[in-house]
């Protein structure tokens, strides 16, 4: 008998075939129990039934950009000619056709402002000035009447610029207001507290649509005949009031999540109320409040489509109006799919960015 002593290292064994590799992944994730297996099979079956006809409609049998509506109806399949024919109307609404580079530039300005503001390296004092300059540029571009631009009434604004104006300006104005409201609600001063609580609860207690109706239908009846306040302005104010109340509650959640020790430590350092809030409490509270705040942002971006009930043409409104052209009726799927993609791009980007921001700002809390 020779005793065998193994010297050196034993060569690595491959793990058992049923624990690694694609087959094992499938087993562990999709077929680990009988009901998961059943669900997987059902979903695969559903996809197999749904996707081929969808692709067939979207791409294979789709009609090109220069088809007539009649050809589209006879051929079946998606009619992308509708989108190309109505593209400018859906994006810019009834803005004068030859001047539509102005709303286009407005969209570019808004997107640039948003992208610049997303980068934390640019979070400096001049960012506020940049926004002010951006808003001024938007106002000049949309209204005109100066610098040789023809005057365009805001009843002619529509499409994506209107959606962006309502949501971006609305949120930009509502955000500082909501911070004040949240602080007011947590205030020790009874008058301020009661006012903030009343405002927040009153506004949160009514649906946005009723606030818009009040602003557009009821409000003019209280004014003397002939005096009218701009319809867009009324809608914008209704949006700001509503967004401020909702965001105030999100921020209050953040404020309440800050341990009492932080408040006491700030007091102990001899900071006054505003210093304490600005330097200690709000930076932490706002970071905590990012998920609910972004939730509000996203829902408000989409809620701007409610202005359709007061006769303003936001992106959804222009798409619907485009469908009422007698020559191009019935292409609902193409229209809604197109604007759905636009809404999705904006909302998805907001949500992705907020996740990144959340990670960046809360490094200290990660365990």
């Amino acid at each position, binding site marked *: 008998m020779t005793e065998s002593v193994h010297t050196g290292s034993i060569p690595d064994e491959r793990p058992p075939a049923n624990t690694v590799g694609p087959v094992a992944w499938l087993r562990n994730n999709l077929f680990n129990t009988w009901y998961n297996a059943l669900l997987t099979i059902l979903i695969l079956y559903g996809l197999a039934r749904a996707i081929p006809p969808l692709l067939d409609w979207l791409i294979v049998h789709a009609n090109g950009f220069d088809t007539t*509506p009649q050809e589209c*109806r006879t051929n079946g399949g998606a009619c992308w000619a509708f989108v190309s*024919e*109505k593209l*400018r*109307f859906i994006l*810019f*609404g*009834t*803005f*004068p*056709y030859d001047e539509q580079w102005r709303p286009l530039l407005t969209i570019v300005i808004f997107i640039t402002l948003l992208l610049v503001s997303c980068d934390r390296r640019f979070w400096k004092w001049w960012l506020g000035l940049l926004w002010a300059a951006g*808003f001024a540029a938007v*106002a000049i571009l949309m209204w005109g009447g100066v610098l040789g631009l023809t005057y365009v009434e*805001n*009843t*002619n604004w*529509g499409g994506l610029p209107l959606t962006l104006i309502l949501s971006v*300006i609305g949120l930009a*104005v509502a955000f500082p*207001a*909501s911070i*004040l*409201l949240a602080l*007011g609600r947590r205030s020790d001063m009874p008058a301020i507290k009661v*006012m903030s609580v009343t*405002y927040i609860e009153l506004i949160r207690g009514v649906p946005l649509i009723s606030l818009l109706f009040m602003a*557009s*239908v*009821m409000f*003019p009846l209280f*004014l003397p*005949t*002939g*005096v*009218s*306040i*701009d*319809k867009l*302005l009324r809608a*914008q*104010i209704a949006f*700001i*009031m509503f967004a*401020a109340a909702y965001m105030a509650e999100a921020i209050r959640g953040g404020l309440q999540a800050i341990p009492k020790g932080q408040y006491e430590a700030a007091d102990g350092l001899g900071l006054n109320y505003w210093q304490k809030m600005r330097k200690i409490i709000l930076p932490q509270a706002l970071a905590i409040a990012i998920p609910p705040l972004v939730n509000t942002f996203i829902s408000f971006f989409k809620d701007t489509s409610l202005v*359709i*009930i*007061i*006769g303003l*043409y936001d992106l959804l409104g222009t798409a*619907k*109006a*485009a*469908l*009422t*052209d*007698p*020559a191009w*009726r019935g292409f*609902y799927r193409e229209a809604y799919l197109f604007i759905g993609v636009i809404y999705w791009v904006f909302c998805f980007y907001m949500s992705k960015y907020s996740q990144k921001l959340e990670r960046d700002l809360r490094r200290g809390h990660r365990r």
Partner: protein
Amino acid sequence: MKSGILAATAAALVFGAVTTAQAGPTLDAVKARGFVQCGVNAGLPGFGNPDSAGNWTGLDVDYCRAMAVALFNDPNKVKFTPLSAQQRFPAIQSGEVDLLSRNTTVTLTRDTSVGLNFAPVTYYDGQGFMVHKKLGVKSAKELNGATVCVQSGTTTELNLADYFRSNNMNYNPVVIESNDEVNAAFFAGRCDVLTTDASGLAGTRAGVAPVPDDYVILPEIISKEPLAPAVRHGDDQWFDIVKWVVYATIQAEESGINSKNVDEFVNSKNPEIQRLLGSSPGMGKALGLDEKWAYNVIKKMGNYGEIFDRNVGPKTPLKLERGLNALWTNGGLQYAMPVR
């Protein structure tokens, strides 16, 4: 509250837009302003809808433009305000619009308690039924037990109930809120019958149906829907102008005058035509307008028949026949009062 007011003030600064408009009669205010404010449908094919370039088109829209032509000889001196069904009456009452030209049915309550004055009817509509050909139905009287697709919250729904009850028939309503979805449900086969205004049915059949020839519109019209432009109570002069602009287009068709041949009629010997076209003055002055008001309207907008054909007529995708909207001389209801 405080921040709400702050926000409002800030927004007011951003928009800078509290406007004061007319105090006196509408005509003076409109002349001073330089354009007509017209309330139109936010999107009704053929009556009020924006085209691909964002210009407003449609039969109702053309009457707004006709007003602008009568006043300023320019069809573009109009500010269109798209209005929803709920918004339209507050908009005209509050003075946000000078004229409501938005497929509005003339009714007693609207004429009285809503405070409107209705100009002559520009489109006589009525509720009808559409069915699939394979049902083999020839008359609405054969619809007992049918499933009916109908839009909710409209007089259509009430008329439907009245009609079936008064004829001792049963039906199953499929009530859907949006017009598009009602159509989609019908063409997907969820109901036997689609009911709405006859003009809407014809438009849907021509423009939305997968195969238009598979569907028939039944002959029965079960309600009266006379659609007319409206102004608010309290300014008779303005009401007169709207009324006579509509009559002028109808009278022009009756007299055989259209946008192409109107110049030949200027020197007509016919006193009626002379009065209409301003060759023998007086009518313009009576209305507070230029003597050429009707000439301009006919020249720029056309007569009633041209307006009808351009927007909803047989050559448009809506393919509507004149029907009740033919001149009284052709068996229809369009009848202009004498211009004298």
